[in-house]
């Protein structure tokens, strides 16, 4: 029965990860270490394929192949969530670039306008659109 709990937890993590992905160098390092561990484990399971059966038995799954399939599905979902996030980030950058091009190409003259600080917003969050 442990496998059900584990799988549900894994699915919940994927859902939350999609909502708010952790960022930063620390997280990147953790992810890379995880990736390294994954490769080592993959190598180990090539050399000792029976460890899947042992793990499956410990978790209450019938065969090692079944456990492998479950893991594969979760891994696939993680991939979907993380590539979606990366895609959204890339899209945001493309938007800023395209906007910059559109404004630069606009025919009418653009004059700088003095700005006050808007309510509830840091100055450094402002995009420097009018500052030319």
């Amino acid at each position: 029965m442990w496998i059900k709990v584990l799988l549900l937890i894994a699915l919940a993590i994927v859902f939350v990860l999609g909502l708010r992905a952790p960022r930063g160098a620390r997280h990147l390092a953790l992810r890379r270490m995880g990736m390294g561990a994954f490769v080592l484990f993959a190598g180990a399971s090539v050399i000792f394929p029976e460890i899947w059966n042992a793990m499956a038995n410990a978790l209450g799954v019938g065969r090692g192949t079944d456990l492998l399939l479950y893991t594969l599905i979760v891994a696939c979902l993680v991939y979907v969530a993380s590539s979606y996030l990366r895609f959204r980030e890339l899209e945001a950058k493309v938007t800023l670039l395209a906007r910059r091009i559109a404004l630069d190409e606009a025919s009418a003259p653009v004059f700088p306008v003095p700005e006050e600080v808007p309510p509830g917003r840091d100055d450094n969050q402002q995009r420097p659109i009018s500052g030319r």
Partner: protein
Amino acid sequence: MNDDVWLIVPLFNEGAVIRDVVEDALQVFSNIVCVDDGSVDDSGAQAFAGGALVVRHPINLGQGAAIQTGLDYARAQQGSRYFVTFDSDGQHQAADALAMVNRLRSGDVDIVLGSRFLDDRTDVGPIKKVVLKVAVAFSNATTGVHLSDAHNGLRALNRVAARSLQIKQDRMAHASEIVEQIGKCGLRYAEYPVHIHYSDYSRNKGQSLLNSVNIMAELLYK
């Protein structure tokens, strides 16, 4: 004549009607910027022929991105004080926009949002009405901003509001995002009754109700 007002019209493949829409609005407002969102027809040229300024996205980004580009452009124009987001398919009335700007001129609010449900001029279909009302209830519950309509494209903003908004939702979820930011930035807001003219043309081009699923997903997974 309303020289301090800029009409911001996000424009995507509306070549058939945009010229009339622009010429009509020019009767009331002298400054119109159409943000051509990478149209594949002659929308940009038609808008220009009608007398609007045209800013062109090199690729299609979505209506939210077009509105933000229009705001950035109009804010940088000398003497601009009020900004109106106005649909390109002819469903909005320039007279409503003018009334909303006049409401802003009184100085007690930063943003005026059009609403279809404050009077009975607009004929909203029964299914659409239910979906909109659910969206309104959701929006009121999650943003702390209390409105009677959701996803109404007619809005009037002063400089404070225009500067505070940072639309990051490129596609249709920007309407909810704007309401969310009104709440977060503490902008003073009001609603104004507007008449949405659903022509056969705009009905055919309008959003499918299924699109509300996309909007929910975009808001959740931003």
